[in-house]
């Protein structure tokens, strides 16, 4: 569009013109009411990121809500096309910044499928441990910030206290607290260090008690109950048509979980349950995620008890770096190391879509390879992006206060939505 003014900053008319497709209406409804368009965001504490909502209100009742996204679009999918496969991992980890292990798992899984690469059992179990820790961590951030939206500030501190412990564990195993780059194509970066297991055992012993305490704080609180129970329900059929997955779908009573339905990374070795709700209101959404924390703890416990011995990464030297000590003695190891670090590994041509169960729903990674050392296309089907479409049908004809509660219970992560 070339309609900008030639001097100084753009006038308000320019902004209006750019957004002309957004309906800004003030139509009279009946004798006494009129519709009011209210802009929420992009920077608003209750929008969980840089999300902008254009709401059409009649009094305090939301008649329509239109999410405007793209404020933190960083072109990660485009950047990934310019990087060697193993250098893509830290890039995709930064999309959904609360589920970094899931992003790297989806990407590594897709590349491993293209390579037809076997992941050693120990690496699969280590992945499960970290994925489930990440799921608990993501749910803790969700619970803390959601409670904050409902006015319960102490919940935030309690949840972040436990989250710190998980981040300490991540720091132990990979050296980083966030965006750890722990998962590699073919396995994990390093075996867990000594001292990790007792610390993790202490955490999983502690966590169910902490989750009980959260429930005691919230579920006997009249304000929380009134704001969650019966507000903004959406039935299964509508959710399925809107391609919604994850806790939102399970809250409406549909027990769809890819860990059970199409197990990957040895999830079929563990016994756990899928929490489901009944009516799909905000209370069910809260309960489902809260119950998932206990199930994740169970999975971690089983994975830690049954952790198999063996290598933590594939011994295919064409994909994984040789161990450090081999470089001093083996010429072949040195060549492999040099080729992997400079060029990366080549992946046979093909396309693959690899879905996993993220903390917010189906996280699918589509990778197309043209036979070179860089992916020709990487696409993440981010659950937050798809689930956001359910915001309007959920909050239609409810109070604006319920809009805030519903948005909190939807748990969108804008880094994942905008990518």
């Amino acid at each position: 569009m070339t309609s900008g003014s030639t001097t100084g900053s753009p006038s308000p008319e320019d902004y209006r013109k750019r957004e002309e497709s957004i309906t800004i209406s003030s139509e009279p409804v009946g004798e006494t009411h009129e519709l009011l368009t209210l802009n929420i965001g992009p920077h608003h504490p209750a929008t969980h990121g840089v999300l902008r909502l254009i709401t059409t209100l009649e009094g305090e009742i939301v008649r329509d809500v239109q999410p405007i996204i793209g404020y933190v679009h960083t072109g990660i999918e485009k950047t990934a096309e310019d990087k060697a496969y193993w250098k893509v991992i830290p890039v995709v980890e930064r999309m959904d910044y609360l589920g970094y292990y899931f992003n790297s798992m989806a990407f590594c899984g897709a590349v491993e499928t293209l390579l037809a690469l076997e992941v050693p059992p120990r690496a699969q179990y280590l992945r499960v441990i970290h994925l489930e820790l990440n799921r608990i961590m993501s749910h803790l951030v969700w619970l803390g910030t959601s409670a904050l939206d409902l006015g319960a500030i102490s919940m935030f501190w309690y949840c972040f206290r436990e989250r710190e412990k998980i981040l300490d564990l991540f720091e132990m195993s990979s050296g980083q607290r966030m965006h750890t780059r722990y998962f590699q194509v073919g396995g994990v970066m390093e075996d867990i260090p000594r001292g990790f297991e007792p610390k993790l055992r202490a955490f999983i012993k502690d966590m169910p008690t902490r989750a009980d305490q959260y429930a005691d704080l919230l579920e006997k609180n009249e304000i929380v109950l009134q704001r969650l129970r019966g507000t903004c329900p959406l039935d299964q059929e509508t959710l399925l048509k809107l391609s919604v997955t994850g806790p939102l779908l399970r809250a409406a009573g549909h027990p769809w979980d890819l860990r059970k339905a199409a197990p990957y990374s040895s999830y079929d070795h563990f016994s756990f349950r899928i929490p489901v709700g009944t009516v799909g209101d905000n209370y069910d959404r809260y309960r489902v995620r809260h119950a998932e924390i206990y199930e994740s703890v169970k999975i971690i416990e089983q994975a830690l008890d049954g952790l198999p011995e063996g290598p933590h990464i594939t011994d295919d030297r064409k994909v994984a770096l040789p161990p450090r000590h081999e470089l001093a003695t083996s010429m072949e190891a040195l060549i492999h190391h040099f080729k992997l670090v400079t060029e990366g590994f080549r992946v046979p041509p093909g396309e693959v879509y690899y879905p996993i169960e993220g903390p917010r729903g189906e996280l699918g990674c589509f990778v197309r390879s043209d036979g070179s050392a860089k992916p020709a296309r990487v696409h993440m089907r981010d659950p937050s992006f798809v689930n956001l479409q359910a915001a309007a049908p959920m909050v239609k004809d409810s109070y604006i206060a319920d809009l805030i509660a519903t948005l909190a219970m939807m748990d969108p992560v804008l880094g994942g939505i905008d990518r």
Partner: protein
Amino acid sequence: MPDATGLELTAQELRDADAESILGTVFHRGQATLLVNPSSVHGVLERLQSKGYSFLASLHGCDYYPEEPRLGVLYELLDMDSVDRITVKARVHTDAPRLASVVDMFPGADFPEREVFDMFGVVFDGHPDMRRILMPEDYEGHPQRRDFPIGGEPVLFTYNEERSYGKWQ
């Protein structure tokens, strides 16, 4: 996943309903893909939906530069009862990148179709709100295309706003 035989059977079934609809099948790494004629995407998805693939898991674009037709749109369909996935792929040329929208069948295709339009320039006929979703509304070009350069776009500050992309004219 349907196996290779299952994929051929499905393809034949769809060909019986509309002889022109299926251009080919690909079975790679255990994943089944149907290559469909761009003009019959809507019909094929409707038939697959009634066959049980009623959940649209993902919809995304892909640029096959320098192959022709360049742009591909992939529909990842899922049958939740038999836990079965099938990919439907349609390829269109860049000079007339048009496909029928499937929002009427799958309301969840709304945002993904807008994203494909934004990133690749594929126009979905019948979409209720066909405009950019991630890039600014006044953005020119479709950045996810393979011939779109990476980098080189200046960071916008007040002092260089006049010289910025789309303003210099």
